[in-house]
């Protein structure tokens, strides 16, 4: 199948053997790296900053701004690709790793050039065996063609690229947890400050940690130019995004659409509407850590960082989970809380103890043994986790818990014994 000109980051996903470098080169791979190494490193950073490209891992931080945080005279420097992709609902990085790994490698190298890093580590979650295999092979091919290694494209700049796998821990998607894991430790997030690994990261050195999708966008930003890229999205939200659509839609899948595409368009126009003619009950818009939205709240909602935040939730990793009227929210709560109880790293007491307690309470609503006071206990527990932990995982369980309880309290009350 030929390349699809209407798409940006995913336009070569359907090209046969795109992971092979000969095919990739025919489709323009590494052309932007060739351009980048002829520019001044800080010009590359400025270009990315001007494009409005934001982090697609969850926080939505401006990529170029992050790169600009690297201290002036501290060396060595590292770039770490965050391919932990473990926020429930998120399944787009796997396609980049499997279908167009050279785009990611090129983007990571452009980033490494911009910050003058000497090593790139591609950290991929351990469960991604096949995506890892394809990407590792692509790295070898990139070396063979001189895009990685010593004196890249005769620029005088050298940078090695290495693979590194996780081993099953959600917490390692948190950038400082990821760095700890890379250092061979359990993935306990670091105390802040320092707030950014750009100052003190891997082995204490300045480190840029960017999501797979974010870095894969970099060659496209350079190709079409920052102005055109910025114009694709909404103000402050440049370009397109890979939306992971799952749950009760007729056509689940990964959709590349401009930032700010209306949520209802994603569900109906692209996702084919709700399965079996059912009615929409709720949507989790940005991975399981985001506040749930009722069907009414989904109306007229552009999917960009500011718009979703203004509706009291977050775009996160743009993982949209669609829930129809047949789902019981207490059950959904149980599935959600079970995840955080399993994944709490155990470092902070409120999260370690609180998640386990929430799990036990959520089970009571399924077993039919819950009492009305359990609803308030759950809310209070969540409130006692929220904002009282080292990393964002505390809020990640507290926010959805509170939102389910507040917006669907009647469903919890309906299954209580008294």
């Amino acid at each position: 199948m030929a390349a699809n000109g209407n798409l940006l980051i995913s336009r070569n996903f359907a090209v046969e053997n795109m992971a092979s470098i000969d095919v990739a080169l025919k489709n323009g791979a590494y052309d932007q790296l060739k351009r980048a190494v002829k520019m001044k490193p800080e010009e590359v950073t400025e270009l990315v900053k001007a494009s409005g490209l934001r982090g697609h891992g969850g926080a939505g931080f401006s990529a170029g701004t992050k790169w600009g945080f690297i201290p002036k005279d501290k060396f060595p420097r590292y770039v770490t690709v965050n391919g932990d992709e473990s926020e429930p609902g998120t399944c787009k990085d796997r396609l980049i790793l499997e279908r167009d790994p050279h785009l990611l490698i090129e983007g990571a190298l452009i980033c490494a050039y911009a910050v003058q890093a000497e090593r790139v580590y591609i950290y991929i979650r351990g469960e991604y065996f096949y995506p890892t295999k394809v990407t590792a092979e692509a790295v070898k091919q990139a070396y063979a063609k001189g895009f990685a290694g010593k004196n890249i494209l005769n620029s005088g700049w050298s940078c090695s690229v290495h693979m590194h796998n996780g081993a099953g821990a959600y917490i390692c998607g948190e950038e400082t947890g990821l760095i700890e894991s890379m250092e061979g430790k359990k993935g306990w997030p670091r105390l802040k400050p320092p707030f950014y690994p750009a100052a003190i990261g891997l082995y204490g050195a300045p480190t840029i940690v960017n999501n797979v999708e974010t870095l894969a966008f970099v060659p496209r930003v350079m190709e079409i130019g920052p102005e055109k890229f910025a114009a694709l999205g909404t103000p402050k939200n440049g370009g397109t995004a890979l939306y992971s659509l799952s749950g009760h839609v007729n056509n689940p899948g990964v959709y590349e659409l401009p930032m700010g595409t209306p949520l209802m368009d994603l569900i109906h126009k692209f996702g084919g509407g709700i399965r079996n003619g059912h009615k929409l009950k709720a949507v989790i818009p940005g991975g399981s850590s985001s506040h749930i939205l009722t069907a009414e709240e989904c109306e007229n909602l552009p999917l960009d960082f500011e718009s979703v935040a203004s509706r009291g939730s977050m775009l996160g990793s743009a993982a949209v989970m669609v829930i129809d009227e047949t789902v019981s929210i207490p059950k959904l709560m149980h599935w959600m809380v079970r995840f955080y109880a399993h994944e709490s790293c155990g470092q902070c007491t409120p999260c370690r103890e609180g998640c386990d307690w929430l799990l036990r309470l959520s089970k009571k609503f399924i077993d039919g043994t819950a009492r009305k006071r359990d609803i308030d206990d759950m809310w209070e527990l969540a409130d006692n986790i929220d904002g009282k932990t080292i990393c964002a995982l505390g809020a990640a369980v507290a926010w959805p818990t509170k939102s389910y309880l507040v917006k669907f309290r009647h469903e919890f009350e309906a299954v209580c014994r008294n």
Partner: protein
Amino acid sequence: MAIPETLKKKAEEILFRYPEDRRRSGLIPLLFEVQRELGWITPEAESWVVETLGVTDVNVREVITFYSMMRAEPSGKYLIQFCQNISCCLTGGEEIQKHVEHKLGIHPGETTKDGLFTLKCVECLGGCSWGPMMLINEDQYFQLTVEKLDRIIHGLKAGEPVPADNPTPLLGNVAGEKV
């Protein structure tokens, strides 16, 4: 059991990735290779990892007990990791999970008597748009139905495995549909 030469060679390859004074970074990748080679992390292999990396026993222990993919005990020939997270549950994962349990006659965490299958229920495997999904050893399987699952299990028993869903099928406009 002695440490196989292939594993020693793999250790060299892994350690090449990190700065010379940062051998500890090779810990997780090396434990992974140990599992791949030996099926699980034997006490002997654990001691070898301690020696090879120049770390302490506790450094290795804490990593083995922290990460859910680390196996400190043997499992069946085929390790089934079944996703139990939201998107897979929304698309019928719970029913299929019950079916697997019934079919194999084991609960999550157990191994069949013939040593062929170990079942584990795990959290999100990142196949949300293709749910329900599972991993069998290193192979990914998507869009599971009772029928598809039966075919996969039967194939493994008969020594004629059903091909895994590698690569992940393209769903959504990234498949090339014009927008």
